[in-house]
């Protein structure tokens, strides 16, 4: 082993093809620290061969460690998800004596990210942090992480058994940044009892069908609303993926840095109009952010009969529904706008390796992550939560086959993930401050439509303008 002080700034690693960026301002004045690099990773010249990367992740360092290496793992899992993760970690800690993983809950993905970025300014950082898929560009830009490509290179780890799309989603310019872990996509949740009462047959698979079903539900008086709706813009991004349409420019931000959004289109307007009409025609009820599970509770209480949310909630929903005899949970694939040429995006989160870690800790983290992604663990993980198992061999394991036989709801997400094609549109958008774009541009536009009945055209224009401003602001501040 040796050097405990790992190189904290993998400036050699870099993410982006150098975007021809003319407005790189005048030499910045720095009041406090003159030694900060004037350029960021994204601006550095391309092309460090993988072999050099491997030095960042001495995967054998654990062999030299005296005693167990402790690593801290910040996560955002709640309820059943947290329980399952906790029991996995406990199993891992018990299965060997070289690594000890400490789980720390840090709030939602956004809060976790905020905390991590705050800690970058100084403060205690975790060794592993679980960040949402939207954090990809930010994670790359932050200089805070070791790209896991380093460990892959160092250990010769093979992703052959993985569902390829989960790996490529987190790969930028052939460098894998975080380790894919909990992978999800949205599915349609419905109360079969209510649908039956309203005379709705098979679950709707398109937005138009949802509307029809909702109309039937409302008209029959089974429930005051057909659909309960949150302000999640993830679902909107998924619609674009399903339609194989890019969300931002620069090949969804994967070839060059994104500078503007692309949903200022017919398709965008169609989505906005649908959302607007559903709520304003009294077919859908808007319940807020969804962080408080109100959209599901609305189903439980008979306020609505359908909602769309991540498959990760499946286990919790099935458990919760036991308390409500009038509710029979049925799930179906994520509805599309019409075409299903693309596929659902890889949602969920991935595990990032902090750069301020010792060699032993990097090795330990790598060991833990690879263990976590072994087929057995993925099967357990899948059954306990609803997340998609990302190992192909996992679905052959009895844990999964039995589960699918008994609770077929669990295969929905897997099926639609593997059904998707591989394209820049289905890889998902890469935006520097994706979370902020959602909060600042999308949520207000939705709320304007839902709460103030703003016409969809206006809302769309507002969202586009605001989103482009958010992107521009980020790019300016990071010097891109």
């Amino acid at each position, binding site marked *: 082993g040796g050097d405990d002080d790992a190189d904290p700034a993998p400036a050699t690693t870099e993410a982006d093809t150098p975007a021809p960026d003319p407005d790189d301002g005048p030499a910045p004045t720095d009041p406090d620290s003159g030694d900060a690099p004037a350029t960021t990773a994204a601006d550095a010249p391309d092309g460090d061969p993988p072999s050099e990367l491997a030095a960042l992740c001495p995967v054998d360092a654990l062999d030299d460690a005296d005693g167990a290496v402790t690593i801290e793992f910040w996560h955002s899992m709640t309820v059943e998800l947290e329980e399952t993760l906790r029991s996995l970690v406990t199993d891992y800690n018990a299965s060997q004596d070289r690594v000890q993983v400490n789980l720390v809950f840090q709030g939602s993905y956004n809060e976790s990210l905020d905390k991590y970025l705050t800690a970058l300014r100084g403060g205690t950082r975790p060794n592993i942090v679980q960040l949402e898929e939207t954090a990809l560009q930010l994670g790359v830009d932050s200089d805070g992480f070791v790209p896991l490509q380093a460990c892959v290179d160092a250990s010769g780890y093979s992703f052959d058994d993985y569902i390829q799309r989960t790996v490529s989603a987190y790969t930028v310019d052939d460098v894998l940044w975080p380790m894919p872990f909990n992978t999800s996509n949205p599915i349609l949740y419905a109360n079969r009892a209510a649908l039956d009462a309203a005379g709705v047959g098979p679950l709707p698979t398109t937005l138009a069908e949802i509307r029809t079903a909702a109309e039937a539900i409302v008209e029959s008086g089974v429930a005051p609303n057909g659909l309960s709706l949150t302000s999640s813009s993830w679902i909107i991004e998924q619609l674009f993926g399903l339609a194989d349409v890019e969300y931002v420019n620069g090949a969804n931000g994967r070839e060059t840095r994104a500078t503007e959004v692309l949903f200022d289109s017919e398709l965008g307007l169609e989505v906005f109009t649908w959302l607007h009409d559903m709520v304003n025609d009294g077919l859908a009820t808007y319940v807020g952010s969804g962080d408080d599970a109100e959209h599901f509770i609305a189903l439980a209480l008979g306020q609505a009969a359908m909602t769309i949310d991540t498959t990760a909630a499946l286990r919790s929903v099935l458990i919760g529904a036991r*308390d409500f005899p009038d509710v029979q949970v049925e799930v179906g694939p994520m509805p599309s706008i019409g075409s299903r040429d693309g596929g659902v995006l890889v949602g969920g989160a991935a595990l990032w390796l902090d750069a301020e870690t010792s060699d032993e800790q990097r090795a330990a983290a790598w060991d833990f992550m690879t263990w976590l992604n072994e087929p057995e663990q993925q099967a357990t993980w899948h059954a306990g939560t609803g997340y998609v198992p990302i190992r192909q061999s996992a679905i052959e394991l009895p844990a999964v086959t039995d589960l699918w036989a008994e609770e077929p709801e669990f295969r929905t997400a897997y099926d639609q993930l593997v059904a998707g094609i591989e394209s820049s549109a289905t890889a998902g958008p890469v935006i520097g401050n994706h979370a902020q774009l959602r909060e600042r541009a999308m949520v207000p536009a939705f709320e304007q439509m839902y709460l103030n009945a703003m016409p969809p055209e206006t809302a769309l224009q507002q969202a586009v303008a605001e989103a482009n401003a958010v992107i521009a602001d980020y790019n300016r501040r990071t010097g891109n």
Partner: protein
Amino acid sequence: MAVETIPASAPRAVPPTVSPERRRRRRRVRSFLNYVALTIAAVVVLTPIYVTIAFSLQTGPQALQFPGSMWPGELDLSVFRRVFEVSGIGRYLFNSALVAALITVGQVLTSITAAYVFAELEFKGRNLLFVAFLATLMVPAEVTIVANYDTIVSFGWLDSYQGLVVPFLATAFGTFLIRQAFMGIPRDLRDAAKLDGYGHMGFLWSVAVPLARPAIAALSVFSFLLAWNQYLWPLLITNDDDFRTVQIGLRTLASSNITEFNLVFAGTVVASIPIFVLLIVFQKQLVRGLTSGAVKG
């Protein structure tokens, strides 16, 4: 003086005497109405607390079955045990208590010494300093929070008790409160102590402090309450479970158990019990400390 301009006023213009029974009845009605008003007000004030306790004792759908949900289910207190198991709230409570206690002791001490200076010692620039003290009241903590965060980082005090405590060890409000109390001590006592052979420190600790006890008690309660209830700062500077305070613990509890309301509400109840006890014990001191002239400029 024109007597005529004064309207009828003599006792004879007064309603003729009421019989004692009527009067007693009237008085009883009046005090009954008072109790009704008081009770309504009390119910309104207590409703959120009550409902929280009731909900903490209900599970799942039970809590959604109005009007049954208004009454606690079976008195199954196991949820309170679960709170401790699930969320480490025990540790959070300990942290809060420790931090609040340290802040309280610190604030009381610094307030006493600073208040003594402003009440008893004369020197050039004293008024200017006093104004500077009071000016700190005008700076919302949030204004300086970014810079303070950087300071704490540079001290390496993130996730530490120092970080939670030290920035609050001085208080202009407390200084002001105690100064008022000191100024209320008769000058004669100060002089008598001088003649009895005591200097400033002797007078401060053996006369002024014991006499300012009501104000000190009020300040202690206030400091403790404020410290216990701090939210933004601990949220910002603690990431480590070992240093989280109960308010942040509650926030975590609430966001990690979005569907288990009873657990969240039970946590809420647990987090407020220590302070309720404190309040009931020290309520009199609080009011007494305040009546001794602290509030009236």
